[in-house]
């Protein structure tokens, strides 16, 4: 199908953008950075078009539904959100170095969706339990949340890398990374977006579960893992109120938090539960 063909090409576009951002940081030449932004933007436009196309194709097949219903579609949307949030961040901070640490997530998600033999890109009809408007809001909020946490993960790596910097090294790569306090604040703001969206995701998910299965919370592994991620990020938000808990420790907890998010996303399919239909 056309949409999945376009989407598989976008993997390479994002990879190219990543290489250009890297080139910018290694050489210190702004030209590569601007080119990288341009390539990312083109990729994002094509990505958007492909998602819309997929929606239209599903309607033409007579099983029309918003393209957020299986692992393939969620990965595609995850990559879209990361790229979208990243471009906003680049525009707001006027700094391109984040690209090196964030774009790999986008292209890895695309590559996994497009080239993993376990993931089918076929458009499938919705089983009755998934036919709900809550599904759309649930998936969108969760994935914007996951994407924000992904970006926070990228920023945390930058933070830990930047800490290594010594002025006498005169290393271009390390020098162009923004200062620690800027990274820390930015990370905090991104986590707030993520926390907000994850909370909304959990809320919409439980309202939906209530209408489909009769219980808003059943401690199924996926629910529990999303709660665990939520607790970790609540921890991160509160840790700023305890003296000396900024910076490095926060970056490390963002690592742990994002690992929980990834487990919520992929790992849980190996544990049984209600959500395993989403395989």
């Amino acid at each position, binding site marked *: 199908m056309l949409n999945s063909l376009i989407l598989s090409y976008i993997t390479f576009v994002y990879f190219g953008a990543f290489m250009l951002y890297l080139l910018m940081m290694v050489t210190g030449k702004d030209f590569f950075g601007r080119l990288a932004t341009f390539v990312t933007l083109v990729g994002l436009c094509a990505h958007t078009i492909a998602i819309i196309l997929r929606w239209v194709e599903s309607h033409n097949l007579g099983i029309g539904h918003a393209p957020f219903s299986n692992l393939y579609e969620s990965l595609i949307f995850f990559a879209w959100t990361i790229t979208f949030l990243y471009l906003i961040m680049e525009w707001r901070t006027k700094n391109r170095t984040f690209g090196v640490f964030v774009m790999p997530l986008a292209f890895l998600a695309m590559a996994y969706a497009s080239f993993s033999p376990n993931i089918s890109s076929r458009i499938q*009809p919705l089983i009755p339990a998934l036919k709900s408007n809550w599904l759309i809001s649930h998936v969108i909020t969760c994935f914007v949340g996951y994407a924000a946490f992904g970006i926070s993960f990228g920023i945390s790596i930058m933070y830990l890398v930047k800490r290594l910097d010594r002025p006498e090294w005169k290393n271009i790569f390390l020098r162009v990374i923004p200062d620690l306090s800027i990274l820390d*604040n930015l990370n905090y703001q991104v986590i707030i977006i993520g926390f907000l969206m994850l909370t909304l995701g959990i809320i919409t998910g439980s309202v939906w579960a209530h209408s489909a*299965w*009769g*219980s808003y919370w059943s401690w199924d592994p996926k629910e529990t893992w999303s709660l*665990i991620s939520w*607790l970790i990020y609540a*921890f991160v938000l509160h840790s700023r109120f*305890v003296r000396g808990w900024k910076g490095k420790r926060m970056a490390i907890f963002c690592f742990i938090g994002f690992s929980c998010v990834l487990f919520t996303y992929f790992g849980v399919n190996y*544990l049984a539960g209600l959500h395993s239909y989403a395989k």
Partner: protein
Amino acid sequence: MRPFVFFGKSSMNEYKSKKQTNIIWKFFRSVKLTLFILLILAVTSILGTVIPQREGIMEFARRLNPDMFRLFISLDLFDMYHSIWFRSIIGCLALNLIICSIDRFPGALKLFRAQPRPDRKKPFENLPPEQTFIVREKQGKAAERVSSFLSRRFKNVYTAGDQNSRSFYVEKGRFAHFGVYIVHSSLLFVITGSLLGSFFGFEAYVNIVEGDKTDTVILRKQKKPMKLNFEVRCDKFSVDFYENGAPKEYRSDLSFLVNGKDVKKMSLLVNHPVQFEGVTFYQANYGSVPGKKAQLKISRHSGKDDEITMLIESGVNTALPDNKGSFQIAKIEGDFMRMGPAVLISIQPDKGDEIQFWVFKDSEMIEKKVPGMLGRFPKLNPSAFKPYTFYLDDIESKYYTGLQVNKDPGVFFVWAGFFLIIAGFYVTFFTSHMRIWVHLSNMKKRTRISIAGTSGRDRVRLDRELTHLTGNIKELFN
């Protein structure tokens, strides 16, 4: 970039609680305790996703040694999330929240009620140069312009000063101080709701065959039956399929009866539960069971040329062809001895004793797999009563609908909590108490204007507002 300033930090220092020095109080008001509890909750929750909960316990238990198994049982590890210790951790979190909030709330209230003070000096320390400028106008005139401009943009403008220096103060978003309290109390709503649900609610299920009614459901946890105050009848159940065979929609038409009388009819679909007298019904699954009728063929010789087809209800006495006696269907089984649908025929001959034997629907297939088997056992031989041979064409099958039946009086609290958490996040993260001072000082024929501000958390928005105001006020004097 300027350093972030939290009102959280400053409020912590400014409003140290004086009244309470009690150890327990001190313990529960600490944010360090919060961090500890959050981590403990996260770690224990992981346990529950690794150890099977309720379902699949037996298989897991076989792999444990008996001592471990006993330990697991005594720690409630197989139903961890409902255990006393897990609930106590949540209880500690609730207590932590309540005490922390009570402890800090006066501080927030004080900030909320704070008298406006136009003549503060502190905000002007370390002011970036672009927020100070000089205009060619006398201080008095300039102050008038600034005043009327500010009162157009802000609800209240406070002012202080004299000929030499005038100060204005404006603000917005005072309510932001309460955001965290809304977030935290919302969690209490959710916790209360979930407790109410687990103490006063139930989760049960029931299967109802089309046409049948029941007033008894089976509790999931205790695996015990429970009577409802009313009866439910399944009038009809239907399934739609997609072309590829996947199910598209399930639908049960239900009637509710009180004292035997039909009171209400409702259709139940997946994702569209129905409610009756505080009890909610959800479409959970479905299946089919053998009905009460079967279609039989009876031939008088072994050939099929003179056979008679009859549709017979179970338990109804029917005359045999040629009136050599009568027979009835004693039992109908959907899958008898793992050999498919079968009926038990009971024949009452004119003379002699009753004869019973099973007739299978798939007798030809069984014959192929195990030749001669059916003939060997009189109980399985469809020709056991000579000269008749019985064949089973089909048994009528009926759908049953599988209903999840729940009552949860706490749901309202949970929904209220969800609503409050969203409202609280909005207030906490998207509003901030922004306070702005404009200072005018007399420089003979000119006036120096400085603009400064503080904000709770949103430094970025404050900076934007300050730049905007500076621009606008400069324009006033062009």
